């Protein structure tokens, strides 16, 4: 069984290699090959899952050591995989949703001449993401971590001829690199503290280290998580990342890659558990981001950017839960999985809408689409109900638990976090209802584009709708299934551990409160967008709305604080290098040149002048010799 773990990564990696190096020969069948290998990976994952279920719950982890990777002195990194319940959850999510999105992309990318390459990148992403969750040490995780970053870079910038896409791709990579600095430093700290950075020895000996060290490691890991999971303050890349093709947004920037930060924190639980300050930082980041993303989501008219804000916010919930410690880990992961279903479904729905609307993304130019694309409407609607936490659907089960856990943190902190989470739930209900109303209800508002092509909304082909239907099933039933008999909790508990905490409010109270804020959110959206017609150009809006449209000025902030000074600095240094560093050298050269110019005058070309200097020199030498002798 252990050997299968390697295959899990190898299958999509092989696909990526074949598709990217295969050349035009594979143009015709490349997408099928890529999809088949993604499915193969899913099947292997399923086999491993079945095998894992068959074993005792304390003996489920598999370990597969492939080879020694970097052995230098005390520094030992191995290429070794570890498959426990936590990794297994991710493997199934990644390969499952990944396969569905491969299938969806067959239809979505049908007319793109570079479809083969698209599938190659997708396969590369799967391989890197699987490596990330299967690695048994932080350095190998880092490889996967940057691997998904690379795939994300390539896919955001897939339509490279658009300067906006190329810029967005670059931005995503560079912001992520800032996070990677955190991961690098965390690994180095682990190495100097424990002499190793493999999960098992570090995590099982975390208590040996001082709290200061653990806090430092924890904060660095949090920085890494912020980069990858688009959390404040490294969140600015996610909105721009929507320049990528929609399946990419669904797979990478909603369901899987952006949740890697949650994985990292959950995986490193033993470190955070012993570093309360780091945990406080984590929950703060989570709470701030969940509100930040939600507010941004309210103001966006671009359907994908609204969903991106929502993703940011939902991941904020997960980070918040993960920061709560053993009370929250399981629910963080549970929300991660259910979110994977409904957010991927929502994005695919958005893609389907765009597919039918000539790639229009402005929701103000949609309206009344439920009649034209019924399957999309229904699946999107189910995803919508799931994300706002409609009772019984997936989101309800997972989000409710997180809010409950936030209150259970206890003390003032618990009240603040719980309050933020509740407020977030209300805003979520508001902006998702807004998206729903703007897109599928009301009057049609689309207009012909510059070339006079009027969109003809139509339902998407089967290859696109089937994945949407499957994901809709997940959005509806996954949460309930997980909560049945606390199945998910029991499944993950051996890895992440779990404690209940003491909530000041009863579970029923929290649920009731959630329902109330949910209704309020939906009602406000209904008043604003359902009752009266929606203008097809956005009104100026309040100060907050305008700020939110600009992503709460995050880019302006980065521009003023980082980009501009950076530009001045590099320009200044180029000048300094040329004038000062080089100038000193050239100045020396010039002064030597000047001196020799003067000395050159001695060389007048008359033989007798030279002869005089010879005689003079000889005379001086003789005189000196005689003098020396005399002394």
């Amino acid at each position, binding site marked *: 069984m252990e050997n299968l773990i390697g295959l899990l990564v190898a299958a999509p990696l092989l696909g990526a290699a074949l598709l990217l190096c295969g050349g035009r020969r594979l143009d015709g069948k490349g997408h099928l090959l890529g999809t088949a290998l993604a499915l193969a990976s899913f099947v292997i994952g399923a086999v491993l899952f079945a095998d894992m279920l068959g074993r005792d719950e304390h003996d489920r982890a598999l370990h597969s050591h492939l080879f020694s990777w970097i052995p230098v002195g005390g520094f030992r990194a191995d290429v070794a995989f570890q498959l426990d319940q936590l990794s297994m959850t991710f493997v199934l999510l990644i390969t499952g949703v990944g396969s569905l999105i491969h299938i969806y992309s067959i239809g979505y990318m049908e007319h793109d001449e570079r479809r083969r390459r698209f599938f190659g990148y997708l396969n590369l992403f799967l391989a890197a993401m699987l490596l990330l969750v299967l690695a048994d040490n932080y350095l190998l995780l880092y490889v996967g971590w940057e691997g998904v970053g690379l795939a994300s870079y390539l896919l955001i910038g897939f339509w490279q001829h658009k300067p906006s896409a*190329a810029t967005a791709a670059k931005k995503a990579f560079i912001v992520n690199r800032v996070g990677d600095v955190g991961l690098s430093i965390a690994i180095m700290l682990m190495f100097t503290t424990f002499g190793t950075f493999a*999960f098992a020895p570090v995590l099982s000996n975390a208590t040996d280290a001082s709290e200061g060290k653990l806090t430092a490691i924890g904060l660095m890991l949090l920085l890494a998580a912020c980069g990858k999971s688009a959390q404040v303050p490294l969140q600015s890349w996610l909105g721009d990342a929507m320049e990528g093709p929609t399946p990419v947004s669904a797979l990478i920037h909603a369901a899987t890659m952006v949740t890697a930060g949650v994985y990292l924190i959950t995986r490193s639980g033993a470190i955070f558990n012993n570093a309360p300050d780091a945990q406080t930082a984590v929950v703060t980041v989570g709470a701030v981001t969940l509100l930040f993303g939600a507010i941004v989501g309210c103001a966006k008219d671009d359907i994908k950017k609204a969903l991106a804000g929502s993703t940011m916010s939902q991941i904020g919930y997960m980070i918040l839960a993960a920061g709560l410690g053993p009370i929250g880990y399981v629910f963080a992961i549970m929300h991660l999985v259910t979110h994977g279903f409904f957010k991927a479904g929502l994005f695919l729905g958005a893609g389907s809408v765009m597919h039918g609307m000539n790639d229009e993304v402005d929701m103000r130019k949609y309206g009344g689409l439920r009649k034209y694309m019924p399957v999309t409407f229904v699946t999107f609607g189910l995803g919508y109900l799931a994300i706002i936490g409609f009772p019984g659907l997936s989101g309800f089960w997972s989000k409710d638990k997180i809010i409950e856990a936030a209150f259970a943190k206890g003390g003032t902190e618990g009240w603040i976090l719980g309050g933020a989470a509740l407020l977030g739930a209300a805003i979520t209900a508001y902006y998702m209802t807004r998206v729903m109303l703007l897109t599928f209800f009301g009057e049609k508002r689309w207009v012909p584009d510059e070339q006079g092509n009027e969109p003809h909304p139509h339902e998407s082909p089967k290859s696109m709708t089937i994945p949407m239907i499957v994901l809709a099933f997940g959005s509806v039933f996954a949460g309930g299934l997980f909560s049945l008999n606390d199945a998910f909790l029991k499944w993950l508990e051996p890895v992440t551990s779990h404690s209940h905490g003491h909530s000041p409010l009863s579970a029923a109270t929290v649920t009731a409160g959630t329902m109330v804020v949910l209704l309020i959110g939906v009602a406000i959206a209904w008043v604003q967008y359902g009752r009266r017609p929606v203008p097809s150009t956005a009104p100026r809006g309040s100060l907050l709305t305008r700020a939110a449209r600009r992503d709460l000025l995050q880019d302006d902030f980065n521009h003023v604080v980082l980009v501009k000074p950076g530009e001045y600095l590099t320009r200044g240094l180029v000048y300094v290098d040329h004038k000062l560093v080089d100038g000193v050298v050239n100045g020396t050269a010039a002064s030597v040149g000047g001196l020799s110019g003067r000395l050159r005058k001695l060389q007048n070309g008359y033989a007798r002048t030279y002869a005089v200097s010879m005689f003079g020199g000889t005379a001086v030498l003789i005189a000196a010799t005689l003098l020396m002798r005399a002394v």
Partner: protein
Amino acid sequence: MSFPLLTVTAAVPALGAVATAAVPAAKRAAAKWVALGFSLATLVLAAIVLVSFDPDGAHFQLTESHPWIKDFGVRYELGVDGIAVALIALTALLIPFIILAGWHDADPLEEASPNRRWRPTQGFFALILMVEAMVVISFEATDVFLFYIFFEAMLIPMYFLIGGFGDRAGGRSEEESATQRSYAAVKFLLYNLAGGLIMLAAVVGLYVVTADDLGTGTFSLQQITDARAAGTLDFATSTERLLFLGFFFAFAVKAPLWPLHTWLPNAMGEATSPVAVLITAVVDKVGTFAMLRFCLQLFPEASKWATPVIMVLALISIIYGALLAIGQRDIKRLIAYASISHFGFIILGIFAMTTQGQGGATLYMVNHGISTAALMLVAGFLITRRGSRLIADYGGVQKVAPVLAGTFLIGGLATLSLPGLAPFISEFLVLVGTFSRYPALGIIATVGIVLAALYVLVLYQRTMTGPVKAEVRGMPDLKVRELVVVAPLIALLIFLGVYPKPLTDIVNPAVDHTLSVVDKKDPKPDHPVTDAGWFSYSPMHDRASGGAK
């Protein structure tokens, strides 16, 4: 007497240089094949050296030792340790690719007078082989004087390669580029000569000191380190420091270390890209290599004394080089400044004086050679097509020449040390090695990885993406010859990124030896994990043993 393998390895390219130069003027095409043949023969010999080197054996292997200038105790002494073997292999590997990439760089501008006496084609390839011979013997020499001779002599062919065969594609008049070219060549020569002469003084000083203490002066590295270990040779502190500085200055110019770096962008910018690769990937490595072999082993105490200053200079190199790379408008100068940043990492690793730092620095030398070669050669192919080195003259190349763009991206990703590619391993080792002794320096150096991402991706974005510019339209994709150059380099980058063990196995013992000479030990972790069997662990047991509170 055993077969003088090392001598032969250095002699074959030298012979090749003579043979290439001797090809009649009318048959200039044949000269290329002769040069390629000899470089491949050298590669085979280097492979034999690599195979016959036993990592667990003596420190210096395949040694040869003959008296040369008896009066001054100069010996013809060759020997290789793991570091030298790795770098000889790198050199021998890169030269055939450099020759192939520069296949048309020295074709006469007009084919009208193929019989004229001027023979640039033969000269170009002969000079490249000459450089190879000298670099190889510099890596092999264990006699300081012998090393010095070839370290300096290398400048002569390099001077002609930079000044005589500059980049034709400059977007400038022929006359102006000739001026720029000779400026760059002279600057290169003067900088390195200045360093070399100071080193000469130190070499002479070394002789005097050894002659004082040992009775007979010697330049033999082995003898000097042995004598120091035995206590028969004892440098006065100030003497040792002065001698160290003399050596270090020469190597720091060659490496190049901030603020002695300004010759590199000029030289790399004006030379053709294969020659630029020769400079940065091959010749400059002699500088960092010599720091490891001569500075540290001859003057361990002085090395430790100078470490703080050198570490800071290296750190400045890293950040400064990267920032300047971001500010460049010229593709080749950008890569040159990136190299300065990378050399900063190498020197940082060497003087961190940890196994990881020095092992990483050695790997870095090899990996930087391969990655810069890949990036620079592809950049060269690009520049030849369009006839301009300015970044602003490109745009949308990805659309018309996807393979070129793809290989350029991979070269760039290697330059920014993407995990999975070879440079990541070396960079991370250097960072870990530095961090474990100097945490603050390690953290600042880590910022370099963000800057690296910035200059590489900005370069890629501006040249390869966006709308296709009119001048770029119709640009042909990579030809077979060019693919033959790039593909193996990329394959090697991936292979060494996934499985660097063959390299680390060779390098580790040499690094341990160097550190034992310097008498430095790795810092111990605060809470070492003593659990022996952590390969086959189960997370549940750990959890049970108290991971969570």
